């Protein structure tokens, strides 16, 4: 059985999703559900912390692609943080750093949101 967990945690003006385990075609639905819950609650400033994400396939990356447009239309963003080199490599191979903000640390992503909100 593939182990994957997504947990929502409130931050200062943002919603943080902590990902853990293996994100593949089997578990991608769990992440979709988490995004749907956030969008349903009109939470559009989203930080995804990938510190404990061990693995991602294109099915997992597809979830980010599915929601980023709706999130940005609502003046929000999905910012990704704390990736291991192995996981970052997959995002990088597919060109994600061109269109997604990826930070080494969660606090950087949160402060980016806070700076944007102030303007």
């Amino acid at each position, binding site marked *: 059985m593939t182990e994957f967990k997504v947990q929502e945690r409130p931050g200062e003006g943002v919603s943080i999703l902590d990902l853990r385990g293996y994100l593949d075609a089997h578990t991608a639905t769990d992440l979709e559900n988490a995004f749907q819950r956030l969008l349903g609650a009109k939470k559009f400033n989203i930080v995804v912390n990938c510190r404990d994400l061990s693995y991602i396939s294109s099915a997992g*990356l597809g979830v980010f692609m599915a929601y980023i447009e709706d999130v940005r239309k609502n003046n929000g963003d999905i910012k990704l943080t704390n990736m291991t080199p192995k996981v970052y490599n997959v995002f990088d191979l*597919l060109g*994600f750093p061109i269109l997604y903000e990826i930070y080494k640390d969660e606090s950087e992503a949160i402060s980016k949101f806070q700076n944007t909100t102030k303007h």
Partner: protein
Amino acid sequence: MSSTSKTISKIVSSNTESLSDIREFVAGQARTHGFPEDEVANIVLAVDEACTNIIKHAYRFASDKQIEISVGRQGREFEVIISDDGRSFDPAALRNPDLKEHLTHYRRGGLGVYLMKKLMDTVEYQFQPGQRNHVRLVKFLPASPSR
């Protein structure tokens, strides 16, 4: 030194729940053949993508079918052959996507094949009417296998 190794096969059900078993099997075989961990990860991801495509496109999520994964060495090649009895995949659709265009239009899916080609040295599809479909993934073995 023999230039071929005994082929080891695993048959799994055609559902996404099998992906973790597939990854574990392929990772073990890749390590046995002396690949470093970063290459093991690349091979595992490529096989995951190939099997996900079979589950989604060849079998259209029918979970009562089978996928066979065969692993072995042919000369300098570490070879993974993935076989199914589903619908044939159109090789013409295998052209590399324009990644930026793909991303800027938020197109979901279609990136698995691109990843496979990026991660492996060879990706070949064999389709013949009335016969099983085969995807052959090859990674060249490290110069000095640690076996």
